[in-house]
């Protein structure tokens, strides 16, 4: 489908596929990003056709570098794309601040995929505010067709303005599918050349720099004004509804679909209208003035923070003479929540209260019995590490070593599958968890508090991909400041959380191409940290090692726990051991064990026989790692190596 030539044919596409197709229709040449749900499939889709479509696609070390890589493409005159999840924009923002001043050449589009409601994130950050802060155009597709069409348009818009354009998606578009009519592919392979010998102030031929700042900044703001003018007539801004609506809804993105649905559900399309904006920064003033003037009540529907709401209110205030008084409904007055994702029900509720239309989604009686039945009969599905996951074994050893040490040591967590160690899956070992690489930065700080009497051992964990992304500078900081901390690198050879994208430690690239790999252990040593390695599947030895490193070593230390992810292509479906439980030896819930393996270790491959309390192996689920045989205090779990 991605390279289908059937122009005009309709396909059911996932939002991220639609975006990838849009980029291909625009003739994108360079695409870079850092994996993060819900954004990853855009780069993955492009990578899957990279050789055929003459693209350069890479998973970069982090979002900032990916933006720089994409910018280089643009500086050389190519159309380039950069993709990341919402919080990635924060990482990239330093470069972005300067990029928007210098401007771009080939069409350049930055696509953040926001995750309102934090469905697969540890934050519900807003990338939209960056567009305003950085003074660049912001586009928000309202459905799947627009996801494709607006992506395509964004490239030419960028070229027309000479600056990067932000196109923001959200989980409910990126990870949803809808009908999309394909357009024509652009399969030219343009030549790349970076021109720099022109006049210093010439945006097309001079060096690409931010100085002189006042000059460039003025230019940049000019571009934004031009964008606003262009947006006045954009087909992606549409009004649907009566001429003088009782209620005007202004919305964008997936919220457009929720709003339209709400009006239909309440059968109130004749009373209320929707101004659906595809270009949400800068706002096209004339278009808004026209619609605001025709309404007295305005409901602004958007996700998380009142971004549109604030901007519209400023515009309304500035034009109060022509628009007149308006009663606004939105986040600030509490009509809609300013946390969590939107859904049709929120919007239905808002409209029904504003227009006084009674609505019951679910009869109270039904809701109550549904909740009780679901609570009592459908056991909660708690998240856990996979069977055979090395993280379970790693945390087992780290947790036990810290307990043995007995000095209230703790672990600063980081972002990846291994963040789940805040849950019972990882024995609750993690005590702080924030952003990429910050576990080690925080630990670096904790490790300097000895002079204030803090004697707790400080440990941080970090995945291999996260280490490259933002863990490295934190380690450099810890080494340089001689912080007393231990960084445990949970090296499972891949970006497992988001689906095994390669990272610099892996000898292959986004399209499966062969690449040199960067050695984590070598880096740590050369940074100057005392560096150790361990195999987390050897639990006794790893526990001993962690304890020794905590107690007998001082200063910045690194322990690399190396063991491949259970889902990795090399491991999946291949058992190292056949494992079984001897029920005659198993102590089950008796004093002397109390179900250590099923109750505490909790590998899903171990099943508790509810009648006897004894353990059994579920052959289908067990991945054959053999670790449970080492933790059983009774020697009841037997393992034998599978002949290869």
């Amino acid at each position, binding site marked *: 489908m991605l390279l289908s030539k059937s122009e005009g044919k309709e396909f*059911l596409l996932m939002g991220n596929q639609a975006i990838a197709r849009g980029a291909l229709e625009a003739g994108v040449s360079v695409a870079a990003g850092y994996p993060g749900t819900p954004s990853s499939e855009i780069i993955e889709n492009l990578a899957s056709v990279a050789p055929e479509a003459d693209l350069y696609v890479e998973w970069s070390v982090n979002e900032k570098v990916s933006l720089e890589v994409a910018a280089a493409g643009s500086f050389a005159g190519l159309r380039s794309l950069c993709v990341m999840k919402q919080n990635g924009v924060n990482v990239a923002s330093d470069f972005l601040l300067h990029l928007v001043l210098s401007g771009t050449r080939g069409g350049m589009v930055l696509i953040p995929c926001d995750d309102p409601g934090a469905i697969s994130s540890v934050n519900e950050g807003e990338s939209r505010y960056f567009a305003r802060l950085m003074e660049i155009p912001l586009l928000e597709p309202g459905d799947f067709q627009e996801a494709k069409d607006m992506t395509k348009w964004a490239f030419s818009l960028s070229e027309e303005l000479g600056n990067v354009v932000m196109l923001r998606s959200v989980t409910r578009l990126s990870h949803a*599918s809808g009908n999309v009519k394909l357009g024509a592919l652009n399969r030219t392979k343009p030549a790349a050349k970076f021109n720099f010998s022109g006049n210093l102030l010439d945006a097309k031929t001079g060096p690409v720099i931010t100085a002189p700042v006042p000059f460039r900044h003025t230019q940049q703001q000019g571009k934004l004004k031009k964008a606003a003018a262009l947006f006045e007539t954009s087909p992606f801004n549409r009004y649907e509804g009566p001429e003088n609506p009782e209620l005007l809804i202004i919305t964008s993105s997936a919220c457009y679909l929720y709003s339209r649905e709400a009006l239909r559900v309440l059968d109130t399309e004749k009373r209320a209208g929707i101004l659906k904006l595809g270009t949400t920064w800068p706002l096209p003033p004339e278009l808004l003035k026209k619609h605001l003037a025709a309404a007295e009540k305005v409901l602004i529907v958007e996700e998380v923070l009142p971004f549109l709401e604030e901007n519209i209110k400023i515009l309304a205030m500035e034009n109060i003479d022509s628009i007149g008084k308006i009663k606004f409904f939105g986040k600030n007055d509490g009509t809609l929540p300013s946390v969590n994702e939107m859904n049709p029900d929120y919007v239905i509720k808002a409209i029904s209260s504003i227009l006084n239309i009674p609505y019951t989604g679910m009869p109270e009686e039904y809701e109550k019995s549904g909740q009780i039945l679901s609570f009592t009969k459908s056991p909660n*599905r708690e998240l856990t590490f996979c069977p055979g996951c090395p993280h379970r074994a790693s945390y087992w050893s780290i947790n036990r070593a810290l307990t043995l040490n007995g000095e209230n040591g703790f672990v600063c967590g980081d972002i990846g599958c291994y963040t789940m160690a805040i849950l019972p899956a990882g024995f609750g070992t993690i005590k702080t968890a924030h952003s990429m690489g910050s576990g080690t930065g925080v630990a670096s700080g904790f490790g300097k508090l000895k002079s204030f009497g803090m004697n707790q051992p400080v440990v941080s964990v970090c995945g291999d991909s996260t280490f490259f992304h933002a863990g490295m500078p934190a380690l450099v900081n810890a080494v340089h400041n001689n912080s007393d901390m231990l960084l445990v690198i949970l090296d499972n050879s891949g970006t497992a959380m988001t689906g095994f994208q390669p990272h610099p430690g892996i000898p292959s690239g986004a399209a499966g191409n062969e690449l040199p790999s960067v050695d984590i252990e070598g880096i740590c040593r050369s940074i100057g940290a005392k560096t150790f390695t361990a195999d987390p599947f050897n639990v006794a030895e790893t526990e001993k090692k962690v304890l020794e490193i905590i107690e007998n070593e001082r200063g910045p230390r690194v322990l690399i726990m190396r063991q491949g992810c259970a889902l990795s292509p090399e491991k999946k479906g291949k058992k190292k051991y056949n494992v079984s439980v001897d029920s005659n030896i198993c102590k089950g819930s008796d004093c002397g064990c109390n179900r250590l393996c099923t109750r505490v270790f909790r590998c899903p491959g171990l099943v508790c026989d509810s009648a006897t309390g004894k353990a059994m192996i579920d052959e289908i689920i067990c991945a054959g790692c053999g670790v449970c045989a080492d933790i059983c205090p009774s020697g009841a779990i037997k393992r034998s190596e599978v002949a290869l």
Partner: protein
Amino acid sequence: MIDPFNIIITGVGGQGNVLAARMLGNTLAKAGYYVTIGETFGASQRGGSVMSHLRISKESAWSPQIPKGKAHLIIALEPVESLRVLAAYGNRDVKIVSNTRPIYPVGVICGDLAYPSLPDLNSAVAQLCDDARFINATEEAVALGHPILSNVIMVGAAAGLGLLPIDDEAFKSVISENVPESKIEINMKAYRKGKEMVGDPVKF
């Protein structure tokens, strides 16, 4: 067909939920319908519940989330998931086709939580909806050669209810776009099996 027709496919990571939703969605899109699928699969590989919302309409695209209480058909690849979905999106008239094979949450495996017996679950479901059909899709899938085929059987069962304008040929063409040539027949077999089974559900 009610327009929009709201379908929820629910299950657990690894059951082929997303694929089932796309097969069903593509079949209907081929028949000229607007289809919107909303997926929640962030934690799918790690034992969590996975849910897809499908909106089918002749008129236009609908939002990727079904409003509370407004599902018309629930396809449960895992039995207790149907109950969870009913509590949020159910109503008396919703139709349910559910697989009977449980996938135990880790809390149940560990012995901390209880999993209801099927008759028990069936009566709980019956308190919330009038037409729930349980079929042993996993068992049939294993008989056909692979447990993963249970998702195709469930799609077949949904088609067998006759609520949706699903055309067998359209389904076949979607299957052939998604699986290797050699696997088309077995998938069609699973689909037909599901259609048959839904008329003769498990009795409790």
